[in-house]
């Protein structure tokens, strides 16, 4: 196991900085996801970690030992790491068994020990019956598990995963997410996981680092990232959200247009009088048709909007509404349990708790 520290890490390609003064501390046995849209620098960060790329600035330390800097580069083969590639990179000329055994052979383990370890690992990823097959004869999911077994069997200090699930179909992808988390709980290897899929990051990670334009814009536990996004980018990238624009009155309230004041909660400091954004998750809004009930809630400190149902889509486990707020000239997206049903055209009151109306920065 190992701790991994990235300090001021920078990598430029031509004029563009793919990774820009990035700082990150990863604890021993921790599972951290680098989450972001394509081109945000997450894969470059991973390849810097692996030692396939040399940074132009900053440094990487593993267990306090310097492994990468503009002047130092420990080659990948001496880093005690494993990596799972987006393309799996399963060697087509070796059987499943040979693929998994390869890393152990490099470590010069005895044949009997190799066989034992490989067989145990193949059972773990449920490939023991396919040990003699060539990769060309396996499905995508099976190949992915070969890559996983090959990376884990060497008991690496650090495990790097580069979008390992992006080539799988939806069902398998969901299954493999839990599989990866389960294996992590079993081995507790320090893991860095690159993905653009927020659900994957949520399921697998201890902490998520949301990346944008080569930098980490927010780092935190999954709930923290989801419930308390710091910026509009994070709020919109992770999950569905309503973004309302207003002026900051004081640290607890925001004026939307037409006299409506919104009680909010804030993660960071924002200057009074500035334009700000408020993030409200669709499932944190409740609807009611009763004016009395709405007034009651408002007096208890809830934020109250009045509007008209414009559209309803039934999803089985929920109804997805669009509520028009005519006074603010806004649309509010609301995800409500299917028990109550409101029809388009109906007048409606929408309620949101100030704790769940989060002030976010522009960037």
């Amino acid at each position: 196991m190992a701790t991994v520290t990235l300090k001021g890490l920078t990598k430029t390609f031509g004029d563009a900085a793919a990774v820009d003064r990035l700082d990150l501390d990863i604890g021993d046995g921790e599972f951290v996801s680098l989450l972001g849209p394509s081109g945000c620098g997450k894969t470059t960060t991973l390849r810097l970690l692996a030692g396939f790329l040399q940074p132009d600035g900053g440094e990487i330390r593993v267990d306090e030992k310097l492994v990468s800097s503009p002047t130092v580069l420990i080659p990948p083969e001496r880093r005690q790491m494993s990596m799972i590639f987006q393309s799996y990179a399963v060697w087509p000329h070796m059987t499943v068994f040979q693929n998994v055994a390869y890393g152990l052979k490099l470590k010069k383990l005895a044949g009997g020990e190799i066989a034992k370890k490989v067989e145990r690992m193949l059972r773990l990823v449920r490939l023991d019956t396919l040990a003699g097959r060539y990769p060309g004869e396996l499905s995508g999911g099976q190949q992915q598990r070969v890559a996983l077994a090959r990376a884990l069997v060497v008991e690496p200090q650090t495990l790097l995963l580069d979008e390992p699930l992006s080539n799988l179909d939806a069902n398998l992808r969901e299954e493999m997410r839990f599989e990866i988390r389960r294996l992590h709980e079993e081995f507790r290897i320090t893991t860095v996981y690159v993905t653009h899929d927020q659900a994957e990051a949520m399921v697998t990670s201890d902490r998520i680092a949301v990346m944008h334009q080569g930098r980490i814009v927010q780092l935190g536990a999954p709930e923290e990232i989801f419930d308390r996004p710091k910026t509009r980018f994070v709020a919109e990238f992770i999950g569905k959200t309503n973004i309302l624009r207003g002026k900051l009155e004081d640290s607890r309230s925001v004026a939307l247009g037409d006299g409506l004041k919104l009680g909010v909660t804030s993660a960071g400091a924002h200057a009074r009088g500035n334009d700000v954004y408020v993030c409200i998750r669709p499932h944190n809004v409740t609807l009611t048709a009763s004016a009395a009930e709405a007034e009651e809630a408002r007096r208890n400190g809830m934020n109250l909007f009045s509007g008209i149902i414009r559209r309803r889509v039934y999803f089985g486990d929920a109804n997805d509404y669009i509520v028009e707020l005519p006074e603010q000239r806004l649309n509010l997206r609301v995800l409500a349990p299917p028990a109550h049903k409101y029809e388009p055209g109906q007048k409606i009151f929408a309620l949101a708790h100030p704790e769940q109306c989060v002030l976010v920065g522009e960037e």
Partner: protein
Amino acid sequence: MRFDPTLPVWIGAALFVVLLMLLPLGSIFISSLYDEKGLTLGNYLQVFTDNAYLKAIWNSVIISFWVGVIAVAVGSLLGWLVTRTDLPFKRAVRALVMASFVTPPFLGAFAWMLLAGPNAGLLNNWYRAASGSDTALFNIFTIEGLIFVMALYSFPYVFSMIANVCELISSDLEDAANILGANRWKIALTITLPLTAPALISGFIVAFLHSLSLFGAPAILGLPAGIHTITTQIWAFFQYPPRLDLAAAFSVPLLLATVGLIAVQKKLLGRRGYSTVGGKGAQKRLLKLGYLRIPALLLVIAILSLSVFLPYGILLKAALSKAWAMPLTLDNLTLGNFSFTFFEYSDTRAAIVNTFKLGILTATAGTLLATLLAYITNRQLLRGARYVSFFVLAPLVIPGIVLAVGLFIAYSRPPLALYGTIWILFVAYLTKELPIGYSQTESTFKTIHPELEDATRIIGANRLRALKDVTVPLARSGLIAAWSFIFIGVIRELSASILLFTPQSKVISVVIFDLKEEGQIGAIAVLGLLLLAVSFAIILSVQWLAGREFFAGSRG
């Protein structure tokens, strides 16, 4: 089920192809087993006990082996350089390798005769002038000379195989070993080499088979020195008095060797295959050659001078000069060779007409047939469609001269007395070029989703109509490519033509062979340049067309 009115078309095409292949091959086996007295093994006995004949076989094996070795060394080096390193001018290098590929080997052999013949060869003249010595530096009329020239025109096969594989192997495969603890050498030894090994071995086999089946080069460079190979020996059996039975018996081992080696090649790939395993995101890094960049480029240029620049240069010089071995001064400059070849000499004029007539006929009929057949096998229209593709591809493993022996025997007597007309050449070319046309159309059809046709049929078009209105227009550039490949294959064909021509049905390649005996160097050079110019014009227009279609995004 209702009778499908298009069914006879499919069955007809399939049967035609099966017959096209079975008739010549069957004829060879049957006549190899008969003499005037009846059934016998005497032909085989005679062929395989006579020392002269055994020597020819041995020569073929030795020459082909070394051609294979050299072709693999040169082809894989070049293939690797253009795909995995930062070698400059890669596109130009690829284009020039393509030019070596398009150059008919007999033309290359002829050019090298002018360059490195011991008496008048240009390089030897230069050497004598520079050193004052009166001996020759090179003698191309030797086994070594033959190996050299044949390797020059076999390495492009290995090149394209290696380049393809190198493009399929992503850097990820090497990185994966790297991060598990393998250093550079270990990666090369355990990952890169094993991944390319099947292609290297297949490349060797293809180059070996290619040189085994060549007739022109050994005839031009070997026969003057009394060196016989299997193909020239088969040709010799056809000279007066013709011994068809011996030719047939001599063809059988060549055929079996070819089939055997192809089987080995298939087996080697086995279950592994390098079809890209896994998914997207695989990337390739280019190796930085550093200070080796310029030396590598110079080496590549040197190799390409041997296969392209020097031969093309000497052909151009010979075409433009009155006396080809003299310096190209104003006195020596002439267009006479062109007017002689195109307008004055009846043999060359007739041959040009015949060649292009046959080229157009065969390419058109071949594309049509290949389209039907590829359609049948691709859409599984008939039970046993797989076997149809086996028959269509069979000529790939039949050396041209062996095919000609079979065709000669099959079509020289009633009811199919085609010999003496250009139609026997047509049948020979059609048979020989069908695999190329078929592979091209097959891969084109693979990219066209059957649902596009289904959408036509559901609104009332039958299969043939759907093929005509939807599939063929979509496959247009693929079909044009198929037509062009067949056409180029036909106009350069020598090894089958040399047995099947008659004085009324000579083609360019045969006339080049004849003119050599007459010493008409200028006319040969003109004809050679004509072949090259037409081939390149066609290839460039196909590329232009394909590029345009690609940008238009018409492939969905």
